């Protein structure tokens, strides 16, 4: 890259890129608060949703965040993440709604999958909870750099009564004038981090001093190898026969269902270490650590059409 960088043209830049992204996200939060009756923030405890909560606090400070968080809990959690979630909620006076996937399995609305993975099972509890609470705007931490189908989704993404994304029926999104109109039963998914990259998120975490669950940083853990990823032992079915448990220094790049979220071998113990690692990485975070996105060329598109995040 450096060989192509040319001399400055003499015009100084006024606003830095993170400041522009932050202001855009805050603007989006305020538009939703101004135009919707019942917004909610999807919260997984992962870095993107934690950044989302930080931005929501900034958007309404010194008033409290005027909407609750929603955690769709697969039951396959990392304890560090649940501890972090509860502490964050208490510290900032947030409200938290939890939809337990286990409840849907217990009463027969959902069946456990043969592979034990519960990520795909989140869609039904999510849609049921949206309907039950009549949430009309659902904030998600999705970024367009994550995946090719997401790259085409609007910041305000209209969903029908089944939560489905219909790519061919997307509204044009013009200037910063967002159109959140929807009919009864429909809702809008809102993605304030649409224009952020993984590196932007980490640079922002560093700049703002945002705390994350400890599993994002290098630590020793008992892991076993499956599908080219390091998975943690747990009630979700592992290790199976022939999978041997080893002790490794690892960290997580994403937080999801324990059965399909892999750790990467890493010595990155601080935010600065992680930024250096992300800059040098040759794999995307989803490609590296999410089995559910590696199923097919159109895996994410198919799940979005079904009403997934």
């Amino acid at each position, binding site marked *: *890259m450096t060989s*192509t*960088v040319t001399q400055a043209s003499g015009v100084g830049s006024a606003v830095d890129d993170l400041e522009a992204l932050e202001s855009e996200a805050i603007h989006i939060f305020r538009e939703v608060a*101004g135009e919707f009756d019942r917004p909610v923030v999807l919260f997984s405890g992962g870095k993107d949703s934690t950044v989302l909560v930080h931005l929501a606090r900034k958007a309404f400070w*010194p*008033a409290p965040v005027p909407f609750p968080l929603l955690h769709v809990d697969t039951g396959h959690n990392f304890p560090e993440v649940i501890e972090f979630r509860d502490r964050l909620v208490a510290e900032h006076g947030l409200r938290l709604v939890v939809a337990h996937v286990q409840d849907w399995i217990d009463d027969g609305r959902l069946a456990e999958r043969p592979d034990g993975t519960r990520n795909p099972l989140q869609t039904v509890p999510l849609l049921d909870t949206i309907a039950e609470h009549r949430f009309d705007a659902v904030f998600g931490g999705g970024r367009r750099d994550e995946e*090719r189908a997401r790259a085409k989704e609007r910041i305000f993404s209209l969903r029908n009564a089944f939560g489905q994304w219909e790519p061919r029926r997307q509204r044009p999104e013009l*200037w910063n004038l967002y159109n959140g109109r929807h009919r009864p039963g429909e809702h809008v998914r809102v993605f304030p981090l649409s224009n952020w990259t993984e590196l932007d998120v980490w640079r922002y975490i560093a700049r703002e001093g945002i705390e994350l669950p400890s599993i994002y940083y290098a630590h020793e853990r008992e892991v076993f190898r499956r599908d080219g990823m390091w998975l943690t032992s747990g009630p979700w079915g592992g290790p199976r026969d022939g999978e041997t448990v080893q002790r490794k220094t690892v960290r997580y790049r994403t937080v999801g269902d324990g059965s399909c979220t892999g750790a990467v071998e890493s010595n990155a113990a601080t935010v600065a270490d992680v930024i250096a690692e992300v800059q040098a990485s040759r794999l*995307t975070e989803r490609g590296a650590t999410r089995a559910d996105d590696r199923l097919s060329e159109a895996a994410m598109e198919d799940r979005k059409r079904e009403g997934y995040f």
Partner: protein
Amino acid sequence: MSDLLRLATAGSVDDGKSTLVGRLLHDTKSVLADQLDAVQRASADRGLEVPDLSLLVDGLRAEREQGITIDVAYRYFATPRRSFVLADTPGHVQYTRNTVTGASTAQLAVLLVDARNGVVEQTRRHAAVLALLGVPHLVLAVNKIDLVDYDESAFRLIAKEFTAHATALGYAESSVRTIPVSALHGDNVVDRSANTPWYDGPTLLEHLETVPVQPDPHEVPFRMPVQYVIRPRSAEYPDYRGYAGQVAAGTVSEGDEVVVLPAGLRTRVTRVDTMDGPLAEARAGRSVTLLLADDLDISRGDMIVAAESVPQPTDELDATLCWLAEKPLRPGARVLVKHGTRTVPAIVTDLASRFDEQKLSYADAPGSLQLNDIGRVLLRTAEPLPADDYTTNRRTGAFLVIDSSDGGTLAAGLVGAALPVPDDAGRRPAADEQALLTPGP
């Protein structure tokens, strides 16, 4: 410190736009190994010998199956100098609405032509839309230059024709750049090509990194639509009342005299607040909370503006519409208009003319506006709006036209903003650098 450039790409089908974007991502090392593996696998499945870089950006199943681009795709890459948000917009006529979407926030647009075909109808049409939307800088990438044997005269001919078209649309020559490239082979995209020794201008990436995009904020008067009123009523902040919004134009500082519209009340800014503490000054694009000296009745939908430059609220809008809906617009239509943070009912009282992008002229009084038509209309709004002319302010001169029955977005609206026609002496008045440089969000 790096800054952010928002750009859009536009071109006809088969000009190689996805390949060019794939090339930019690939050559700036923005493509990671697993993404490249997936492209190589998919290319091999299709019997291709070299990886088809367009597969990096065509995201939807139908796009990959049909080898076309359906929707605006956003792409991200960065160099040490700048971060880039790229809106990759499809080229088919029926998807021009996506070009409007991508261009509305763009500070620069890259248009593609095939060196073998030169400037075609789509190119002229796209350039007209980009000019209308006030995209400050145009780049014409003359692609597939390898297929005309890197011939200088072929390039010069196309460059000359395009520059003439762009200047007729109101662009200064300094805002238009033409670059010979081969997206397939990488010539002049990121790295300088040895095949075009006659070309001494920048490569595409060099130009993207250095083009000046920040306006002088002091040239444009302050505007901020109020999004939300912040009233904690807490023990710690019992009397706090702040007006939250994103500065749409100009700058705001503590002590500034302002007027709140539409009421027209005059007051003074006592603090420009953020969670990180008060700011000395906030520029266009910054989200802030303003505290004011007087206890006024201000709510979402109002606009706070510089006292020395107050737009006159009006309920008669003379505007240009880019019609983006399948159902046509007919005079008398009842719609909603979203301007800033205010949404009001409106009636289209007159459909004055339709713009012909080929002839660069207006045809009088069409019976209707169809999908992708650009027309001049008169709107009467239920409440007065403090609108600026779009050519002086891309943010406060813009509005959405919304279907009041199903909530869909019908049109991009621009206050005033007639495109210049050659009969009008060719140059848009005062439309050069300053006016066009108002940044996007």
